[in-house]
């Protein structure tokens, strides 16, 4: 097995308002459920559901301190509009990888 290189190894630290700490387990759990919901919708060619999920991702991520999640939401929404399966899958892989790497620092 090849070792992971570059951004695929290590963690990504994100600074989050300490007042949001109690909300974070639910927020992160919802994002992991999003990944599964996106995958199911993609398997069913349900681009409308993908666009709706992406819209919510875009609208919430940055408010919690995750600008990257908002960026992924924007990419997914654009890809859903043009029904680009390849771009959707690429963004979903990016989201799953990001969620696995993220480490929250409360301040």
């Amino acid at each position, binding site marked *: 097995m090849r070792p992971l290189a570059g951004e695929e190894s290590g963690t990504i630290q994100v600074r989050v*308002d300490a*007042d*949001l700490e109690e*909300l974070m387990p*639910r*927020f992160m759990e*919802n994002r992991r459920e999003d990944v599964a919901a996106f995958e199911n919708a993609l398997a069913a060619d349900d681009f409308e559901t993908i666009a709706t999920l992406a*819209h*919510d991702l*875009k*609208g*919430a*991520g*940055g*408010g*919690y301190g995750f600008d990257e999640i*908002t960026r992924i*939401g924007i990419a997914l929404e654009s890809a859903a509009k043009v029904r680009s399966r390849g771009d959707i899958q690429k963004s979903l892989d990016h989201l799953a990888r990001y969620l696995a790497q993220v480490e929250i620092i409360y301040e």
Partner: protein
Amino acid sequence: MLVADSNTLSNQAASRAVRVLLVEDSPDNQFLFRAFGKKIRCEMDLAENGAIGVEKFQAGHYDLVLMDMQMPVMDGYTAMRTIRDWEKEQGRNPTPIVALTANATQEMEEKSLAGGCNAYFTKPISCGKFLGIIAEYAERER
């Protein structure tokens, strides 16, 4: 002498909490905005779609309505117009309505402003921005 709550982060010497109606279908944003509101003296009622938002608006009394645009059952644009029509019928002064949307298009902004909202902001909304919106747009009785 009555002393205002010294813990408040708001620099306004309001005699009571600001009353906000949040019309928003995303649970993530509902929890987030509620947490932001706890930083000031803010009573927040929640409606998860435009139809419930209109009902709550008519039954309550608010200093500010925060309105998501894309929602199931009744969207924010329709809810806003319904509220404005109802206020006219009732001879009431318009309550400030601020549109919050993740759709950052010029067309949506123009449509929202034409529909009767006082301002339009793009989500995601940070805590600082959220508190700034409340400070700027909530009309408190003095």
